[in-house]
């Protein structure tokens, strides 16, 4: 083992883990769509605060558990700053540098909060979803909800193999360094070089893995019939009913804000 994969389902969970995967998926979609449809900055700002609280109650600590947390914050800050510094419409609230002609307006602040908030809300909601949702539980729930099982297992396979490919790519990269391969030059050039060197071994590994997986799946009758049965059951519980009622409330508020 050469490392660990940070963004994946955490088995040590709180109340968010207990919710039905489709309830959480509904909230993820509701928040994402709502954040982009509603133009008031308070909507995504409140969503971020709510997500932060939900994460805290679910024993998720963003700085510890969310991948690229610092990058996420700095990117949000950059979005905010760009909107604040380069939006000229609205009335001026401050003039930090008349030499450069940069004027901070109320519209700039509004757009800054809106854009940075949307970005933070969508990424936080997605990461929270991944960290608290058993991926196979999600796939099985989708299949039981009508997704054709071939697509459902494509999702399961992708979820299962992604961390393995990450570890494999890391090993190949280390093998290259040990053979004196140097990645010099500009960042762009380094990225192209790493991709070129990694691509063939990764591709060959992926094809071999796919072949063995196909043998395993076909040997266990995958695809023989149009339908299949499911052993795993997942029922909506009282917390799901509460969460779905709240989601309905969110949808109503979203529509009202859009109309208003």
């Amino acid at each position, binding site marked *: 083992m050469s*490392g660990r994969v940070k963004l994946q389902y955490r088995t040590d969970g709180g109340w968010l883990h207990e919710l039905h995967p489709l309830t959480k998926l509904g909230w993820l979609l509701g928040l994402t769509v709502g954040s982009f449809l509603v133009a008031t900055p308070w909507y995504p700002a409140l969503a971020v605060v709510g997500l932060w609280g939900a994460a805290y109650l679910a024993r998720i600590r963003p700085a510890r558990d969310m991948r690229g947390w610092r990058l996420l914050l700095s990117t949000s800050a950059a979005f905010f700053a760009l909107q604040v510094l380069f939006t000229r419409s609205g009335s001026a609230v401050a003039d930090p540098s008349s030499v450069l002609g940069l004027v901070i307006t109320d519209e700039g602040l509004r757009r800054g909060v809106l854009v940075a908030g949307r970005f933070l809300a969508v990424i936080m909601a997605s990461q929270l979803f991944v960290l608290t949702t058993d991926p196979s539980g999600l796939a099985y729930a989708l299949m039981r909800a009508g997704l054709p099982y071939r697509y459902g297992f494509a999702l399961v396979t992708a979820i*299962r193999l992604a961390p393995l490919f990450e570890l494999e790519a890391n090993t190949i990269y280390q093998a290259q360094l040990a*053979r004196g391969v140097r990645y010099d030059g500009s960042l762009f050039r380094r990225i192209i070089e790493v991709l070129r060197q990694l691509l063939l071994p990764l591709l060959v590994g992926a094809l071999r893995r796919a072949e063995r997986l196909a043998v395993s799946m*076909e040997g266990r009758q995958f695809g023989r*019939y149009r339908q299949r049965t*499911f052993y795993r059951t997942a029922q909506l519980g009282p917390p799901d009913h509460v969460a779905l009622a709240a989601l309905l409330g969110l949808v109503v508020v979203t529509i009202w804000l859009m109309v208003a």
Partner: protein
Amino acid sequence: MPALLQVTDLHYRYPRASDWALRGVNLRIGPGEMVALAGPSACGKSTLALAMAGFLHERPGGQWRGAVHAEGTDLASRSLYENAEFVGLVQQNPEDQFCTLTVEDEIAFGLENRCYPPEQIASQIDWALDIVAARHLQRRQLSTLSGGEQQRVAIASVLAARPRILILDEPTSNLDPTATQSVLQVLERLRRQEELTLVIVEHKLEVLAPFAPRIVLMEDGRIVQGGAPPPASERPAPRNPSAPGETVAKLVRVSHDYGSRPALDDISLELQRGQIVALMGDNGSGKSTLLRCLMGLIRPTSGAVTVLGNTVPTVSSLARRAGIVFQNPDHQLLGETVWDDAIMLARNTGREEPVRPRAQELLRQGGLWERREDSPWRLSYGQKRRLNVTAALAHGPDLLLADEILIGQDPTNAHRLMRRLRESADSGAAVLLALHSVALAQRYADRALFLDSGRLAFDGTLEALGAYLAEHDHTAYLEPTV
């Protein structure tokens, strides 16, 4: 005894391959038999296993001649799905064949595909887990299982549909001796309780000897011999260790963890020139992490590492004077030709000319010189592994780190690789080799380390290792040739 499975004059050639992988195989397997398919790497064992499991006759582009009959029915006359009701196949690496993320889902997978009702699936899961002694794993995530546990779940997932024949392709090759023992006990239970017919592809015949299987020996796509297992060979007396030379690597109180999981715990040791040090321990005990720390690929969480005079070793600073060989040969095929791959490090460090003669010699010794213009991806598994070792040794490293390079190697290849390492140590290198075979360690190594959950539990001579293993409940390591 009537044949349950009969192979008659079977030939098979893979799509786009120039040679036949099977060349007239005849084999008859009776009910309840345990058959061990053995032979050198790339002799056709795995191909025969796939053919008997019904996977090859329908493969587009492959050439199939001859027949495989199961209970008198020609496999070629039925679909893969129909044949899979009769024969189950467990592949070498369980991780490659899992289709789901949890133990329960994995065992249910084949039964759900057969449209069994949930109540029947539940009882089949219980039965399959009981038979492989893994009921306690039922609720676990597959990614959290050890190698031996994964293999038991892989067997259970195929077994759950109750095939008449179970074919296992090198089921223990990735496992440490403790896990190997546990998987072999499962197979023995299957034979005893269920009277299942077992066909096991296996290099390490002596580990199967207690079950008295029928041995079928293959070579170059043909069966060349059948009969009883060979008698367990005497383990060689440990060699007289070479005198340790200058210290090239030193670890002082080194610890490393992956998040909350400790991988190395307070390790202190030195490696000296002229010696092969055998690094042993169960899967997940920290062997790979230790090798990566020494190569500067991982910076330990705490402690001091000094390698070849570098107090903060990085892979870039060590690449000229050290080499590392990882577990999977495919991860290290970096050249466009065999020759490019062998000479890559020297070329990247501007020392191609002086290294050429040694690279040529190593390729000749490894039987790869004739293939020097070929793509390394066209080599067999054993050949790729020999190329990895050649690429790591060509520049004459002062320190060689090798991570379980004997996995999947037949005895001839294993000894061939060990001789290369011995020559390297005799010419002044320090070699640290992770392996599971006490017999090979005693024959070639000078000293042994044993890691137990990241701790250095033993550091001493090969002679003393046996006593340590016996005293500390690691007796599986002392079984023949494991």
